[in-house]
């Protein structure tokens, strides 16, 4: 089989049975956030609205694929995909349950202590619990295996010392899933890492918000000083952290959040553009073609996951292209309209101003562009 054949994504088969669900989600969104201005829709999975998350939980749209015993609905990954893409296209404020639903819930069900999972996962499905993920550190970004936060064995549990950085929503989270070192680094760099569930109210844990370039504070520094974690809050096996993190990242491959971050600005541009202006039509038409293709690729990957297949490196391709697309939208807005980004410029300007500033993060979060392309290169058997 050629390299090219290996990375091809088969298109998802059309499935008319999803139309009803899509309609229900659209009705719900129209009722709940129909009036949300575009500059707020642009925040999407950074948008924080606990009431909205609770309402979504009541509809049964959090943890849809999970077993009923964990508060899920045992629906397909394609049904979940439809709900997710409708939420994100509408710019719904999903930030209060996003990490918990996408990563923490599946991780706890798979690796967590059964009692802990049974207690927390149904609360996630109800939209009540907020999680953050403690991976990066002051000296560990892309090179995650170099983390220095340590957990040492104490009676009935572990004691954590260290600092986590860029931890999104730590200031609002109930729990953190922290990646820590439980035995000293050896030649095998990925050995000796473990995942721990940390109660954010633990004594010795301090959260310090960090303002981003827009002046808002979504991410934080989390200092852990002799923080005690009971045995049952160790997630999975001590020393298996790296393998578990890799699996965890597989839960979030190439979803609609990887290309819809600037969608609110694209629709604003369509509303402000002149159909007879060749520049407007050409640039926006290109973005529409890219949008449609990214969606088809993302759906294709969802369908592969739903069939239990491994999308392999193609998921990294979609993520890379998705970030390029999201970052290009504010650039196109500038080229076509050249609006000065003034504070009182109205909704379109506010949307463009916000996305222009946050766009650099699109190719940093969840793995930098360079790391991602390294993964693609591995898929091409170059390394």
């Amino acid at each position, binding site marked *: 089989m050629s390299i090219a054949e290996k990375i091809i994504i088969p298109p998802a088969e059309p499935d008319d049975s999803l139309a009803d669900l899509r309609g229900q989600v659209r009705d719900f969104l129209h009722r709940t956030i129909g009036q949300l201005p575009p500059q707020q829709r642009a925040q999407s999975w950074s948008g924080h609205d606990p009431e909205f998350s609770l309402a979504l939980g009541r509809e049964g749209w959090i943890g849809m694929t999970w077993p009923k015993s964990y508060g899920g609905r045992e629906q397909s990954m394609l049904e979940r995909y439809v709900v997710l893409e409708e939420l994100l296209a509408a710019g719904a404020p999903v930030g209060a349950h996003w990490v918990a639903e996408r990563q923490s819930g599946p991780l706890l069900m798979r690796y967590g202590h059964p009692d802990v999972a049974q207690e927390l996962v149904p609360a996630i499905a109800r939209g009540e619990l907020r999680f953050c993920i403690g991976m990066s550190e002051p000296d560990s970004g892309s090179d995650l295996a170099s983390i220095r936060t340590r957990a040492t064995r104490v009676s009935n549990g572990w004691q954590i010392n260290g600092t986590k950085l860029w931890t999104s929503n730590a200031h609002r989270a109930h729990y953190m899933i922290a990646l820590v070192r439980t035995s000293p680094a050896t030649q095998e760099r990925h050995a000796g890492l473990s995942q721990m569930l940390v109660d954010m109210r633990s004594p010795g844990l301090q959260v310090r918000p960090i303002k981003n370039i827009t002046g808002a504070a979504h991410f934080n520094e989390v200092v852990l000083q002799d923080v005690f974690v009971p045995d049952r809050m160790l997630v999975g096996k001590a020393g298996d952290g790296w393998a578990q993190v890799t699996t965890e990242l597989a839960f979030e491959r190439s979803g609609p959040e990887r290309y819809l971050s600037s969608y609110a600005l*694209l629709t604003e541009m369509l509303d402000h553009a002149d159909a007879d202006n060749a520049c407007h039509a050409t640039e926006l038409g*290109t973005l529409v073609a890219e949008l449609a293709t990214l969606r088809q690729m993302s759906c294709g990957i969802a369908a592969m996951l739903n069939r239990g297949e491994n999308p392999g490196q193609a998921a990294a391709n979609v993520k890379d292209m998705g970030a390029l697309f999201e970052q290009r939208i504010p650039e196109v807005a500038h080229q076509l309209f050249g609006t000065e980004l003034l504070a009182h410029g109205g909704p379109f300007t506010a949307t463009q101003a916000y996305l222009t500033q946050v766009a650099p993060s699109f190719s940093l979060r969840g793995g930098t562009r360079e790391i991602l392309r390294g993964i693609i*290169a591995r898929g091409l058997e170059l390394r």
Partner: protein
Amino acid sequence: MTELERMLADSAERLFAGTSSLADTERMEQGQWPAQLWSALEQSGLIRLFVGEAEGGASATWAEGLPVLLAAARNLLPVPFIDTAVCAGLLSRLGLPVPDGPIALGLSRGGEVVAAGNSPTLSGSLTVPWGRYASHVLVRTTMAHDQQPLWALVPANLAAIDTDANIAGEARDRLRFDDAAPTHWAAADPLPSMRCPDALGALLSAIRIAGTLERVLDQTVAYAGERTQFGRPIAKFQAIQQQLAVLANAVVAARMATAAACAALPQPDWAWRAMAAKVICGRAAGQAAAIAHQVHGAIGFTYEHSLHFCTRRLWSWRAEYGSETHWAQQLGKHAIVHGGDALWNFVTDRKSL
């Protein structure tokens, strides 16, 4: 992938790899028709993959047959295999007989042909890929008096031919008809929504590009693994790896855009998906050609090395049947007229994934 799709893809790869060679492609560029190759392809029957079973075809859907068309492009077949296979499929859907020999597709591109009369005859001129080698041309035109669609199968020898060629040496001839009588015709369209017939040509160009991009990726990855500089294969350098990752992106996107448009062919939304496919593939063609040449270095710039067979085609095809700018403008105009609120439904309108 359906069983038929897999079976067709496998036999296409075997057939093309076994019968065609770059020597044929090179001779074709000098104007020598590879008659042996053509008769091998015709005898295999694979060329009738889109024709109904009753007429001796495989009755494949457009989506099921796509891998065969991509393989034809990937193998740089120097004959109108894709054109003939698609024309045969269109004829079959129109209920018209499929003639032997190469069939060229005559869309409105670069000219105009009109039909008139109760037994319609065709007059006018248009650019037809492979025109001089075709035994028949399937022309899509409109009736002069009421603008109704007409598909007419015309013997190519009824046309006067001004020859021309693209930079890959592929025949792109101007055919002039003067009251030419088709052997068969149908006053209907074989696909839903033919308001913009060139969109079909755009889709065929996109398919050619997507298939050839796969060859470019395979060839460039292989070369990076073989070529050693500074004591190691250049594939080990991050600067090269990052470029090949971008090339892989282009291949994945081109294939998906093409596949989505083919899957949509039974529905009216096929036309805009075909336009989108040409936008994506046209951009991918330029990007991929640039990266492939950069990675190959000077050797890839020689005639002796085979990379140019791909890149000259990519540069030709991205402009044929409308460039990415042309189609992006059509798509953009439509999207602007309908406004931001309509966009999401436009993208998801198949009521499903």
